[in-house]
């Protein structure tokens, strides 16, 4: 099964807590199992995405950094 991203969010330049709020809004639109990727530049987003995923039960399947841009991939939890 190939992994396709359903929604991609550009959150670069936004400061906390906007990246999390925009992500929470976008995740609502996804069907269970669909993936969302988000790009952010706020260093605080690393711990915020990790904690948000844990608290809301939507798994954070990928987290990385490339040249100051953080990339996160979240999977919408099963209903």
């Amino acid at each position, binding site marked *: 099964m190939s992994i396709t991203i359903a929604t991609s969010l550009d959150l670069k330049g*936004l*400061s*906390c*807590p906007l990246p999390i709020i925009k992500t929470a809004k976008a995740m609502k639109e996804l069907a269970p199992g669909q993936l969302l990727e988000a790009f952010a530049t706020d260093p*605080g987003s690393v711990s*915020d995405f990790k904690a948000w995923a844990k608290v*809301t039960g939507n798994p954070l399947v990928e987290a990385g950094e490339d040249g100051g841009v953080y990339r996160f991939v979240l999977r919408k939890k099963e209903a």
Partner: protein
Amino acid sequence: MAAEVVILGGGVGGTIVANLVAKQSAGRAHVTVVDATGIHVYQPGFLYVAVGQEKPSALQRPERQLLRHDVSLVVDRATRVDPVGRQVQLESGATLPYDQLLLATGSRTVMSEVPGGVAAHDFYTMAGAGRLFKALEAFQEGTIVIGVAGIPYKCPPAPVEFVFLLDDYLRGRGIRDKVQIKLLSPLNRAFTIEATSKLVQPILAERGIELTGFFNVESVDPVGRTVTSLEGETVSYDLLVLVPPHRGQKVIEDSSLGDERGWVPVDKNTLKHTKFERIWAIGDTTSIPISKSGSVAHYEASVAAAEISAALNGEAPPAHVYDGKVMCFLETGQGQATTIRFDYDHPPVSPSPARRWHWAKALFNKTYWHTVPQGRLP
């Protein structure tokens, strides 16, 4: 002929810049402030009105009294800015030409953007704060919920300060044990700033204030008295207090000077509009990702004034730029407070809560009228 400087908005930022530019130009420029009400309102005081510690009359003065005599005040609403023809249209039908324009129109609250939100109280307008206090006076027992329904909003520490002052108020009435206080936070901590959260979270726990994290308010059910988050959680309330969503003013949106929420894009150091010449913006008005607060408008004002004065004189921009300085007080209740200071290059620091910060805040609130609008405090 004197150059025309037009300032939209007679709040803290617009008033300081008007007074400083008039002073610096020594008669070579004519400064006009356009304000819809002509009344200068000290918004940080709304919080105290909401818990009965301040009277609305103490928070407002005629803008005219705060401006230098050589600054003109036009009490009217700006409806459109023409950045090419360099003029401002007013609701009365008059137009004001400008050589330099400062946008200091601030923000407005739009609770109507939250489905069911009209059922919620807020302390972001004078009327809202007054109504909230009336509701609190009538409140006897149950659950009071405080949530955030949009980012960015004015005065980021305000929800935390409110729950502490609410705790004091309920203790004063002897009914604290009959009331549950729940604070719903957009992040997994009390406040966006981690250092400050670490300081206030133990105090929240000590006062019996329940903190729920990652609760971004999406809608309210006024009949079932519940509030639901984007994350899908639902919380019941008897009295709901929400920080309403904020937007820039309509004149910004109607003139296409800002982004989709009406916030004006400016250089974060010079405060000059990123697209249009001869236009500057400060305070809540801008899209700079920094606190929307009087303190930011205050610190930015001297920079904007110097930039505008230099532009009027055809001089090079001044070396002194806005460095992102923010300084806020945060009430922690029981007569104590802390402060939050930071800038673009330095992370926030907060000292341990103490009585002296509470008194410093109270003193600042009282002396504001004689110091800040006149540009007497750097």
